[in-house]
């Protein structure tokens, strides 16, 4: 085996690292627009899924244009704020320590027959990483019209089931206010829930921590909208 001088080793490693860095930076820059587009389409798909409309990657944009007729941002006091709702980073907003500074997006959809549904984003922690979703309400801003959840790395077959329809369906028709003013959110309970219970759904067996994280996510995300909901319900 050849013997290499120290100078050669330093030069070799420096050149190699610079070449690799350039290559990767170039690839990242070139692919960024495609990746951003994918993320945007996915967000639109998720919003549409929360109003029970299944969109593919191809038709998500046109369906979004068709159904989401209005979107705006409010604060915890329910006051309107001049901002584009779609570009709000929910994760960054929820971590702001001053609650008044948080921008809270609301998407209004007009469904077939002129029926309105109000979509708000959710964000929280699962077992292994972040979980998020969108939840939509009827015009009383109390009854859930649809819900969609997603996650980064929950256990497949267990916590990851929050993505599946069988878990999301039971949320439909649940209510977040008790006696119309007391905020109770929707609980995710272990071991069977009476379907008549308006404020709880069944948890996932074997996915307790994700289920509880989801419950906390719904509670902490929706409580921000409490004032807005109480002021604007019809």
């Amino acid at each position: 085996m050849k013997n290499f001088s120290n100078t050669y080793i330093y030069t070799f490693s420096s050149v190699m690292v610079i070449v690799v860095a350039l290559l990767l930076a170039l690839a990242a820059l070139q692919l960024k627009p495609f990746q951003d587009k994918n993320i945007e389409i996915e967000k639109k798909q998720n919003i549409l899924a929360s109003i029970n409309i299944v969109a593919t990657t191809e038709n998500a944009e046109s369906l979004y244009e068709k159904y989401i007729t209005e979107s705006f941002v409010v604060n915890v006091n329910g006051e309107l704020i001049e901002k584009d709702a779609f570009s709000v980073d929910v994760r960054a907003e929820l971590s702001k320590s001053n609650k008044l500074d948080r921008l809270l997006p609301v998407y209004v959809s007009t469904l077939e027959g002129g029926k309105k549904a109000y979509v708000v984003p959710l964000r929280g922690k699962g077992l292994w990483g972040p979980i998020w979703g969108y939840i939509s309400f009827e015009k009383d801003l109390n009854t859930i019209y649809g819900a969609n959840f997603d996650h980064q790395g929950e256990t497949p077959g267990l916590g990851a089931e929050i993505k599946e329809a069988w878990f999301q369906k039971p949320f439909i028709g649940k209510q977040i206010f008790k006696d119309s003013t007391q905020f109770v959110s929707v609980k995710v309970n272990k071991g069977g829930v009476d379907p008549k219970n308006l404020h709880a759904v069944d948890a996932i067996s074997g996915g307790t921590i994700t289920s509880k994280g989801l419950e906390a996510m719904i509670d902490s995300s929706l409580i921000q909208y409490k004032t807005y909901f109480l002021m604007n319900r019809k």
Partner: protein
Amino acid sequence: MSSKNLKLFTTPFNLQNPVTVQVLGICSALAVTVKLKPAIVMGLSVTIVTAFSNLIISYMRDYIPPRIRIIVQLVVVAALVILVDQILRAFVYDVSKQLSVYVGLIITNCIIMGRLEAYAMGNKPWPSFVDGLGNGAGYAMILIIIGFTRELLGSGSLLGHHVVPNAFFQAGYMNNGMMIMPPMALIVVGLIIWIQRSKNPELIESK
């Protein structure tokens, strides 16, 4: 392809299988095999990375100072893995989401470093490339067998489609929840090793 190269490609499927004989890459075999589809994509990604890192390292082998060879190999593997990850994110976004962190973890897959050290550092580019392809495919094969077994018995489906007839469930059949847990993957690997060894006596160590 000459018979020598063909042999390079085929031995990793049986007598030199990276997972069942060399017992490398076990952790990803446990992690991504709950469902069949991620197992297939993971197998493909590892095959591509093994083949191309073998090729590149083999081209560079005379210029790599031995004292820093491990670092050089790591940089090449890491660069390839990041490229694969970025491309998956740009063009097959849903698959890349399913694999999540495991694509990044290909970097730590022992098979890749193992092949670079054992083969690409001392052989010509084309045989190295074939060797990488063979080892990646040998790994993919095991992942697919495990993924198939676990998804079929654990979720009653294959590639997301339900295959176990409803009549079975009505007759009292249940999906095996244990199959979803990583330990069952280890047991399936053990069963594969058992079958393979009982068919190939040359794999059994003399006492």
